[in-house]
């Protein structure tokens, strides 16, 4: 009798537990959904500016001939309660979408803060709180083609059609697929990628980003840890740190760089302040600047003027002239020199494969240097050497010595080639300390 009572009691407990489990399970499965496109529309000044602030939602910006702006938000929400959906939709409907004078502002963010775990807990811009199981929003924005645009975008990708106005674009941790722009573009990228077509003028700031562009007018660049590829560029002013920059053809090149690599086809004048950089270039007009620990490989250039060089390596194709104010531990390799070479040198290596017969002068004042010069036998010039502890190898049979003094470790030589006229101003003048000079050797 007692046992039967006990069993009934246990059975009741079991039913109770099962009911609790079922109710919990069902309440967890209960779900409300929202799946609609919300549209916002307004008249705008077609020559005005549209500010577009966007976070986390991929967006497409399309242009049209209308003098209106239209924002379409394709909203997909899932929540446990319908109330959460409703208050979230209310918040989305109250996003910034308003204009004043020629400026129109859009901010797609409808929450103040969010914490995500199994669910997303949002503190909405309306002040209310909502818990969403999941949400997905895609944005399409239609703007007049003639407008200018200011974009502030984080953690989302943006695809945009050609616009005729100016653009100020900030993309952090996202991608920008852009077309062409009619006005100046200011671009600020961080951990992002941008693919652009044609820009008349650009001011660009990059941090660990990739930029690919077809054509750009003049560009101001400030960049760190980035990769840039441009097909055609106007004048290029830059401040670069640890970048990789490739330009097929460019105008003037002027800037400072550290730990960066440059590669370009043809260029106008190059002005640089390099530290531990690499530059591979095609034909350039002129080069001037200073460098440390850098490597240059340039197919050809007009005048090369270095105010200072330290532990660099220069490999030139055909150049008109080279002048270096102060050089230490650097290597200079020139395939063909047409006019002049002037070097203040310390522990450098210089090799000139071919010096034009009608060169004007080669002047080296150096210590511990190794200079190898190849001058055609038919060249008429004066050779002037003033050196201590050094060695000189030259084709003596081609020269007439005017003066030759060898005392202790000092050597003084003044000679002219046999074919040289009396008043020859073409000169190879090398002086210094402990150098090795090889002429045609």
């Amino acid at each position: 009798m007692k046992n039967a009572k006990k069993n009934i009691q246990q059975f009741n407990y079991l039913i109770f537990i099962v009911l609790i489990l079922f109710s919990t399970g069902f309440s967890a499965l209960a779900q409300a959904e929202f799946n609609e496109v919300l549209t916002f529309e307004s008249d705008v000044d077609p020559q005005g500016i549209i500010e577009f602030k966007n976070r986390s939602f991929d967006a497409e910006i399309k242009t049209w001939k209308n003098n209106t702006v239209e924002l379409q938000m394709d909203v997909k929400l899932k929540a446990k309660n319908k109330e959460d959906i409703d208050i979230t939709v209310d918040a989305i409907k109250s996003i910034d979408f308003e204009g004043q004078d020629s400026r129109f502002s859009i901010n797609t963010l409808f929450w103040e803060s969010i914490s995500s775990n199994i669910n997303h807990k949002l503190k909405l811009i309306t002040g209310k709180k909502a818990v969403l199981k999941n949400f997905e929003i895609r944005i399409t924005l239609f703007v007049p083609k003639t407008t200018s645009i200011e974009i502030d975008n984080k953690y989302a990708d943006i695809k945009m059609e050609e616009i005729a106005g100016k653009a100020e674009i900030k993309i952090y941790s996202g991608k920008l697929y852009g077309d062409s722009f009619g006005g100046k573009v200011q671009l600020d990228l961080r951990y992002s990628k941008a693919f652009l077509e044609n820009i008349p003028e650009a001011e660009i700031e990059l941090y660990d980003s990739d930029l690919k562009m077809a054509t750009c007018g003049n560009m101001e660049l400030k960049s760190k840890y980035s990769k840039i590829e441009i097909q055609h560029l106007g004048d290029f002013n830059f401040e670069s740190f640890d970048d990789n920059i490739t330009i097929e053809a460019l105008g003037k090149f002027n800037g400072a760089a550290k730990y960066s690599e440059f590669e370009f086809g043809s260029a106008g004048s190059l002005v640089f302040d390099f530290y531990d950089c690499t530059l591979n270039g095609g034909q350039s007009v002129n080069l001037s600047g200073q460098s440390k620990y850098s490597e240059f490989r340039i197919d050809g250039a007009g005048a090369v003027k270095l105010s200072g060089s330290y532990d660099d390596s220069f490999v030139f194709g055909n150049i008109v002239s080279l002048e270096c104010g102060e050089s230490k531990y650097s290597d200079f390799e020139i395939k063909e020199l047409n006019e002049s070479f002037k070097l203040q040198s310390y522990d450098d290596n210089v090799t000139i494969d071919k010096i034009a017969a009608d060169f004007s002068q080669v002047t080296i004042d150096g210590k511990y240097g190794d200079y190898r010069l190849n001058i055609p036998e038919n060249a008429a010039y004066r050779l002037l050497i003033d050196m201590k502890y050094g060695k000189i190898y030259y084709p003596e049979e081609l020269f007439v010595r005017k003066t030759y003094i060898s005392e202790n470790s000092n050597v003084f030589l003044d000679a002219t080639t046999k074919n040289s006229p009396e008043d020859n101003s073409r000169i190879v003048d090398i002086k210094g300390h402990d150098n090795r000079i090889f002429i045609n050797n």
Partner: protein
Amino acid sequence: MKSNFEKYLESQHQHLDVEEPDDNLIWEGISNDLNKKRNTKTGLFWKAAAIIIFLVSSTYILYNEFYLSEPDIYHITLSEIEPAYAGKVANYRVDFENKLKLVDAMKPFDTKSLEAFFTELSTLDDMYKEYQEDYSNYGYNEQLLRAMLDYYEKRVRILDRMLMEIQKQKDYEKRKEEHTAI
């Protein structure tokens, strides 16, 4: 006045108390009773424990769900946000600490030339704070996590550069000594 039945019982008393009480049996009974009482107490304990656990866990869940105040956003780390990155973060941290020790051990001559790297490290710290703010403002985001991971990678990269610079200083000093010796 005694009833007839009482009188009868008295007269038959000797015949009724024929059996002696069995002490062992009595103690066994008492002992069983005591054990029974103990079992009841144990059952109560488990019930109480279950209730307490239920109350504590439900309070925790409710508190977490509805009343939890905003966490200190600047103490959120990448490893907490995404444990899958914890291993990489730990490796970068160890690498960073080791390289920092190496920088210290190499005793650079010209610390001024290294200032730019310390500024760079400080800029990175500021950027990391920005990511922490963004995590609080915009929630979980794979791109954000990658940016946070990059913070650890960049710190190591900057120390690598710093070590290279110190080596350059040493090379310079060595060359200078060599030429002085000549």
